[in-house]
């Protein structure tokens, strides 16, 4: 029986999530970095689900994690496909060429 100290792990999760958010917001260079930070956010959430699932001894969290992994793969595939179209038209993937992307 492992006694979890939930606070440490939650701190790690929230730090990872914030790194992802900041990578999305502050990044001015490359769209690939944006894709990576979206993945990082999703994986941090996965870690959160797994930790809570162990903590609560409940299986719903694991099921949710599997679904999120599947969706994240589909999402990054679609993102890369749109990125390919974009590169073919503009010959660059620099983010400052897109106006107004921040909100």
């Amino acid at each position, binding site marked *: 029986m492992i006694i979890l100290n939930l606070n440490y792990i939650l701190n790690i999760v929230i730090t990872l999530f914030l790194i992802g958010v900041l990578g999305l917001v502050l990044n001015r260079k490359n*769209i690939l970095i944006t894709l990576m930070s979206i993945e990082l956010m999703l994986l941090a959430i996965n870690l959160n689900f797994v930790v*809570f699932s162990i903590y609560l001894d*409940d299986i719903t969290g694991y099921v949710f994690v599997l679904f999120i992994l599947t969706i994240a793969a589909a999402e990054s595939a679609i*993102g890369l496909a749109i*990125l390919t179209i974009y590169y073919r*038209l503009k010959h660059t993937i620099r983010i400052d060429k897109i106006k*107004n992307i921040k909100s």
Partner: protein
Amino acid sequence: MLIFKEIQLLPEIFLGISIIYLIIHGTFISVNNKYLLIQNSILYLSILIIAMFCFLLLNNSIEYNNFQIFNNTIILDYLSFSSKAWIALISIFCFLMVQRYLAVQKINYFEYSVLILFALLGIFFICSSNDLITAYLSIELQSLSFYIMAAMKKDSAFSADAGLKYFILGAFSSSLFLFGSSILYGVSGTTNFEDLKNLFFLTYLEYESIYGVDNYSFVKHVFIDGGLIQFALVFIFVSLLFKLAVAPFHLWSLDIYEGSPSSSTFFFAVVPKLAIFILIIRIFYSSFFEYSIKWRYYIVVVAMLTVIVGSFGGLEQKKLKSLLAYSSISHMGYTLIAFSTGTFEGMQSMLCYLFLYMIAGLCIWSIFLLLQLKYKYSKKQNKDLTDLNLLSKSNNILALFFSTVLLSIAGLPPMVGFLVKIGIFLVSIEASMYFVAILSILCSVISTFYYIRIVKIMYFENSVAGKLYYPIQSNISILVVCLFYFLLFLFVNPTLIYLFSYKITLLLTMTVV
């Protein structure tokens, strides 16, 4: 009654299977050496599939029952039933209107209509989701198809741009939803809306009377951590507001509505809003009603901001599409005002407003899509407002329809738009939100300006030179006339829409209590 309760989901199952069939069918035909163009036939097949979906749904006789199937992850009640039927009917019209636009713009991919069907499947599942997992999966199914639909015009830089932006912001907002739901899961140990409702329904009302005020804090401390739950709910709420394009999170919608092909914009603007609102109702009205004292104020602030931004932002727009985007933002604001009252009448007028928003949006966007500019060389479709100045001389009836629909959504008195709008103001006065009511009435007056300006451009400009339009096909014009008469009919007989929404709200609140 049938033994398998799951058979009640037959319409969605039928839709899913036929989408898979359409993909296989289209792939086998389009790899043929002769490069067959099957765009049109697949589009008609999709219309047929949605019509069959409507037929199966309406014959489903679940109206008054409240089924929860697939391990309580999917709920089938009157709210989901009626909204699904409404969305399906609206989307049939969308398909019919979009067809000619697709042919002119040479979007000759059969995948386009399959993607619309996928998005519709996601929207139908949002309407009937009863679990955070199903809600997330169906939101993703809807928005992943929307990303591709935004980027579907492969030779246009604007379209690819819009697809990329929509992808990044959509992924961001759905990860916020996930973060909120993970904290909710950690605090409560369940993801089911029904369980959450049972867990939190009595917290404020009952324990205080049973255990007394002293023990109440103990019980509250043991059972729930209120602060963490509110933290999670804020995340979920922000992500759903992102999907609705409401004021602090609306900036993406302008670029995306402007950039993506008009047929996709039609779908983004008209179809998914009702489904997202139903998810908001299920989470915030059914499950976490006890927290309504807390979240009401946030929603009021967001709604007021949305109304102000929507009515002031539209003033300086020159493009028709971004003007319509701003108008949809302000409509979402009015709907949120009605939702923030949290009362029975608030829910009813909110549903009224959403149903009417969908019809009026359908009218406006279909007229917008039917106006094909007579350019010789380019297929440019991004219409300025000044392009409309010869419309009353060249196509008088269409100009009349357009101005009537615009005045209806602006809320001028002899129209049905006025009736639903005054419903919202009355509801907010009844909930003693006087300041909100006054401010939103003033903003509604301001937003009337940009609707009336279009009417002025169409009728009262003395210019001789201007853009001309291709004539409209007669079979499509029948549909436009039908929509217009339906709008007029709703003015003559507004009881129809009121009774409909009253029944939905009554059955919803009966299941809540």
